[in-house]
């Protein structure tokens, strides 16, 4: 091969290589940091919301990291999840971290507060943002997940129509971080005219069963959201399958269960009113794109609260309890693919 051809080839190789490196170096990077695993329904739906905004934006390099803290939440697992999450950030060095749910903030994102070159968009935060230092941060914005107590209260009022009196409700939950935040939020809300008997956090399935039996006589509806982190007995490995928890609860409670997560009806809850995971994903992804494109700065994007909710229902449970709700609820649940036989 002639020397001139070799030189031309070398030139081509070097120039192409430099262009690829240049392009890759300057391409905006977004890390979607999920607290849970990709097989968790909530996470899947948040991701769907994110995808609605991000699809087609090929000018951004997107990487997903799953911390799996729903399945493994003991102290060593959380330590490992934190280390892996922070390594993912340090390796990828994204311009924006889109951190979803509380553990992503607690274990990873808060370490990048006010760090130059990195912006944080949070989603799915149930509790307060002060513990993460987001209240005084110059590089943080996002959307808060707040249980739709007002919407739930409206539905309770509709259900109360047939009872002809205010309803008695109580909230039962597993000890997960997000569940604790939800119980705190519920306690601060106005439930009038209904009677909110309080929120109860139980550490295992045995105590869950005991509490359900205790509450069974004095309730009209039991509110639930998180029951995926209940070991059969305290100290035992693994968690009771969520469908089993719900099946036992429905069988032993004698009053209907109302879910505060949209997927609770899939497990057997009669009716669920949950924060829209799609909204959480969509709003956060839109904020991230705005920041990455330079269209807006963090200071121009105020923190939002969840404003949309989704209704889901179980047809068999509605029939069993002979509960009637306006047809529009059923139509809404069917339209959003949340109506279960």
């Amino acid at each position, binding site marked *: *091969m002639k020397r001139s051809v*070799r030189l031309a*080839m*070398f030139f081509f*190789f070097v120039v192409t*290589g430099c262009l*690829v*490196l240049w392009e*890759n*170096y300057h391409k905006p*990077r977004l890390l979607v940091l999920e607290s849970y695993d990709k097989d968790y329904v909530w996470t899947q739906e948040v991701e769907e919301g994110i995808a609605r905004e991000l699809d087609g934006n090929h000018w951004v*390099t997107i*990487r*997903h*990291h*799953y911390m*799996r803290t729903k*399945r*493994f939440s003991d102290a*060593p*697992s959380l*330590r*490992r999840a*934190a*280390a*892996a999450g922070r*390594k*993912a950030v340090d*390796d*990828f*060095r994204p311009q924006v971290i889109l951190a979803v749910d509380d553990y992503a903030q607690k274990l990873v994102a808060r370490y990048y507060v006010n760090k130059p070159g990195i912006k944080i968009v949070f989603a799915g935060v149930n509790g307060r943002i002060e513990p993460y230092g987001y209240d005084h941060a110059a590089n943080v914005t996002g959307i808060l997940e707040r249980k739709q107590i007002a919407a739930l209260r409206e539905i309770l009022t509709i259900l109360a129509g047939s009872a002809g009196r205010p309803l008695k409700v109580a909230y039962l939950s597993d000890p997960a971080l997000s569940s604790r935040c939800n119980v705190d939020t519920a306690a601060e809300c106005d439930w009038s005219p209904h009677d909110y008997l309080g929120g109860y956090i139980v550490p295992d399935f045995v105590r869950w069963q005991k509490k359900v039996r205790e509450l069974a006589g004095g309730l009209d509806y039991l509110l639930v959201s998180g029951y995926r982190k209940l070991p059969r007995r305290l100290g035992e*490995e693994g968690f009771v399958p969520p469908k089993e928890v719900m099946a036992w609860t429905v069988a032993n409670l004698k009053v209907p269960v109302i879910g505060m997560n949209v997927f609770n009806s899939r497990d057997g809850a009669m009716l669920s009113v949950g924060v829209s995971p799609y909204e959480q994903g969509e709003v956060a992804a839109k904020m991230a794109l705005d920041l990455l494109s330079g269209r807006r700065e963090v200071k121009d994007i105020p923190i939002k609260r969840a404003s949309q909710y989704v209704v889901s229902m179980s047809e068999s449970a509605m029939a069993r309890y002979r509960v009637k709700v306006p047809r529009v609820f059923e139509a809404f649940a069917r339209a959003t693919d949340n109506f279960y036989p």
Partner: protein
Amino acid sequence: MKKIDQCRDFLAASDFFADCDQISRARLLPHLKIRRVEAGEVIAVAGEEIGDLFFSSGAELSFSQSGGPEVSVCVCGEEGVLGLVKNMGTVTAKNAGALFTLPLALVMDLAASCPGLRQRASRSLAGRFAVGGEPEGKGMTKAAGRGAWRETAGWLLAIIVPALLLFFIRQDPTLPATHSRYFLAILASVAVMWMFRLLPDFIPVLFGLLAMIIFGVAPPQTILSGFASDSFFMAISVLGLGTVIRSSGLGFRILLLLIGARPQSRWWHNFCVFMVGLVLTPVIPSANGRIAIVSSFVNELLGSLSGRTRQRAAGRLTVSTLAGASIFSAIFLSSKSINFLMFGYLPAQEQLRFQWVYWLVAASVAGVALLLFFLVAWSVIFRTESRSTLCRTTVRGQLSLLGPLSGAEIAALAGVFAFGISLATSSIHRIEVPWIALSVLFGLLMFGFLDRAAFRSSIDWSFLFFLGGLIGIVRTMREVGVDQWLAGKCAWLTTYMVSDLSLFILLLTLLIFAVRLILPINATAVIFLTLLMPAAQVSGVNPWIIGFMVLFLAETYFLPYQASYYLQYCSLTGHGHPSEDARLVPFNLMIIAMKVAAIYISLPWWRFLGLL
């Protein structure tokens, strides 16, 4: 029986010609002759030109080299098929009987169109040095019956085992779906084919893929996803780079430069051999390839030694060569093709984490501990004060014969340099390692350092097929939920994985040690990786740690038959068998203990990195 019938039967049953098609065998028939020999008759004389190939048929043959032991053989002259002109030793008939003879030139012509013939000749030749093993070539004619039994039983079991499995799990409520039952049955059939070695490793994988697609176990894009995985392309690229390095002669030059750099002593020579093996480990993804480079120097280093001194020096060199080229294979991602399989089994985000550099970082403590243990034990057990007989001027002469760096060597150096620089700067450009490796391969192909013929012949495409297929099978396993089911079934082991890792390491060591007695390194690694890595993922244990332990512990041997590269070393050098030096087996066993200790020492490091 007529002579022509005897010849026909021999050609039909001979394992030596098993890889040749029927047309080729038919062409050989007119040239095959039967020769009567008497007891004590010399068939071939060491140093004389090879004219014919002999296959025993009743007559027992013995092979001997000057000063070496007598070995029973069934084939004589196969070194000619490998390109040697003269007999390596003298072959004598032990008793009266018959031999089949074929002209060597004819067999060499046949070997040009049938590469398997060379492999069989090489294996036959290697068997001569496998002292204590069966007489070489026995399987060429007489063991066919035994092999047929094994194969028949294997094929029957490949139907019976999946059928029984389907029967026993038909009503298992813990299995996620019907598809998962089909998956398990297909996997069982593939496993039987592997265990009985019914076919080359990659063909059962093809059967598995095909069956899963036809039975609709998962969408074809999932089943075939391994062929589009990062791991698949990284393997192609690193195998390509390894080919260029191996064929360039760069390794040999480095060895010469190192040996010539210091005053001649046996310790230094052994250290050089060991270090060159170690240095080549990350860049040549095959222990056999590394051994081929380093062992070419062993006989020169033994020089004019003889008797017991030579035996002891050879034992020491065996350990240095084999250990340098093999025991650190798990420390670098790119040092063995099976490592790419482990990488492919990792979940996507763990693959991003355990790119080449972080893999090395995570494995570094185990590597350093093993290196230190090895050097101390090696210095104590194989200590020597004697000076080498290798003349420094010889080394200089060899270097001057090599001349300046050739184009291929420059390409190999440039490839390694580009790969290294790209890895070192990956935090800046953020291009993942598989694509860096593919860029290096592109460069080598573009500039013609790896031509089309070498690309076709030097890259192990059957392994790549095996790799892509297995990754697809594991992804299908996840898709149908069998990983969680298997983790439940192996709960006794996964419980230790989670609750008592120290005990798990011991159990794993014992299990792998037992399996390695009957299965080769890669098959052992595939079985343990396929079972344990998904189980680790389900149990919340970092799957890299489990995968690393499997790779690290499976790469062990104490007898030559356990590792193909050990056999290759014996064949290439004529040394290395345990009977040559009583220290070899205990030292090889000691290396297993060192590896276990290195894993225990790594535990705090893995905790520090947040992996545990």
